[in-house]
């Protein structure tokens, strides 16, 4: 198992009431899986994503990443882990304003130890932006890019440190359907290339691109099932699996 959660709970206190956002969750995600996390709002799917991706700490339980127990990591270790092993794609893109696409993509490289002006980092970021089809938009700031383009910059940023898992939180939630299709296509391709993706969504058609769907309700897993794809996609994925 690449990622494994054992009896993970997350509780919040709002005033006197204790909210149990995650209730004793235990599940595992294997390498190269593409998991869609679904469920109504308040079901705990977003909390699951935050806890599993090291953005938030669990209240109890253990999390293992590549066999390593990471739930007891301190703040600095967690920061390094997020930097090197995890890529984030947010619903609202979260790009730095007034900062070029290239510099946005370079940001995780900076925290990985590249210099602020490293030409190697610049070259890497450029290659990554070309890969998401923005080779001609390197110096545009977020304000000069469409939503779909901004999300592609965010995906390039998520990929730049070659992470083990990509976490995507409603990646198409703020996009029109055409841009949404583009992002879905990119995510599908990334998975076919062997990236493990865990994606939160409430849209069925977006969830349909994943290979496995986990439905949350009241902080618990309601269902966990494989998705049946059109044969072409499945066979292609199988072929890739065979190669690696």
């Amino acid at each position, binding site marked *: 198992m690449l990622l494994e959660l054992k009896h993970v709970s997350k509780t919040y206190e709002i005033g006197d009431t204790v909210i149990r956002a995650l209730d004793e969750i235990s599940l595992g995600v294997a390498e190269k899986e593409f998991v869609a996390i679904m469920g109504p709002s308040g079901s705990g799917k977003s909390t699951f994503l935050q806890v599993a991706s090291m*953005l938030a700490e669990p209240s109890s339980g253990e999390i293992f990443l590549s066999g390593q127990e990471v739930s007891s990591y301190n*703040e600095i270790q967690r920061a390094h882990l997020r*930097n090197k092993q995890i890529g984030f794609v947010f619903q609202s893109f*979260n790009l*730095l304003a007034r*900062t070029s696409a290239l510099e946005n993509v370079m*940001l995780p490289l900076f*925290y990985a130890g590249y210099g*602020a002006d490293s030409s190697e980092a610049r070259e890497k970021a450029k290659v990554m932006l070309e890969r998401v089809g923005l080779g001609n938009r390197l110096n545009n700031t977020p304000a000069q890019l469409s939503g779909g383009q901004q999300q592609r910059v965010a995906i390039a940023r998520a990929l730049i440190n070659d992470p083990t898992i990509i976490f995507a939180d409603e990646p198409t939630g703020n996009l029109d359907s055409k841009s949404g299709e583009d992002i879905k296509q990119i995510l599908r391709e990334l998975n076919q290339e062997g990236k493990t993706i865990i994606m939160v969504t409430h849209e069925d058609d977006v969830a349909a691109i994943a290979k496995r769907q986990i439905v949350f309700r009241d902080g618990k897993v309601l269902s966990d099932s494989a998705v049946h794809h059109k044969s072409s996609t499945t066979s292609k994925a199988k072929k890739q699996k065979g190669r690696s």
Partner: protein
Amino acid sequence: MTVASVAKLAFKSIMLNKSRSFLTMLGVIIGVGSVVLLTSIGTGLQAYVTDQFASLGSNILYVVPGNPFGENGGFGGEQAMIESTRPILKRSYFNQVLRNNRDLIKDGTVTAINVAEAKYGKETKKVTLYSIMSSYETVYSSPAEKGRWFTDAEEEKAERVVLLGKKIAEELFGQVDPVNKRVLLNGQGYTVLGVLGEKGGGFGGPSFDNYVYMPLETSFKYFDTELVDSFIFEVRDKEQIKESTLAIEKTMSKYLDEDEFTVFDQTQLLTTINSILGMLTVGLGGIAAISLVVGGIGIMNIMLVAVTERTREIGLRKALGATPNLILLQFLIEAALLSVLGGLIGLLIAYLGSLALQPYFPAKVTLEAVILAFGVSTVVGLVFGVAPARRAAKLSPIEALRYE
């Protein structure tokens, strides 16, 4: 990851947000600029007055009627005004003091002040007549720039001659050389013997350059008054100011009661004036301190607003792998760059301001003011740049990302 590389990042961040950076700096600029400029005015004033007194010589003793320093050491007062209108001091006392104390006192002069209307050609001016003896030239080191001083003989014979201060000479005669011209004082003709070199003088108050200098006996004879303003004595040795004061008092007390006259030197006068100027400097310093506080609050405000706005940015940076220390370091460097740069701009403005004031006012930028203003602004800038960032860096990435 080196500090230099974080510094580059901080610099980029400043350049990417020029208006925010400028507003942040503005507080520092105003704080430093106003404090340095205001204190430069106070200290400049003090230095100027001290210099003026030093240029008049510090081996001078004055004898005036009554007690001009009053009971509280202040200058002036009603009693002094009344005393000075009574003819108490007499030329004969002055002569006696000189005769009795040749060993201590080198020379001296009696002074009297009158006003008159001076006229040359079409030019008419109200002027102050400063009546003195010819020894005034050496006692007060006021040589004639043009022409010559009157002699002892001319003074004693009450000749109708005058010397002019530089400014009044220009005002009455313009481009014409006044030497040997006749000027009318209250309608009577006087020959101008010479023009004195520039001496300067108080702000708005009487200036030596505006006086018309007249032989003492001449003014006694033609202005119908024997009222003497003061005796001025030049002491041979500065170290003997105290002895000389006592000696003069001893001679004078033969003619007058102790409380009818006062002997004082310039240090006494200077002390009084400096205490007034000191108050002025403290007052200006107070204004400066208020500007520093206002500037500081400005810095705090904009820094707080900036960090609130940047909490989401901090969340994102944390999500992407920034450790809290790196975030703090970046904000520390940004705040330091802005504070120092703003401080330097403020200093530059204050310096240019003091230069611009120079023709009218002897403003003087002091190191203490620079250090104080720069130090306080920088510390305020750093503390309020970093403190909110510290708070934001402690939030979990997800809390910071959702911050609004």
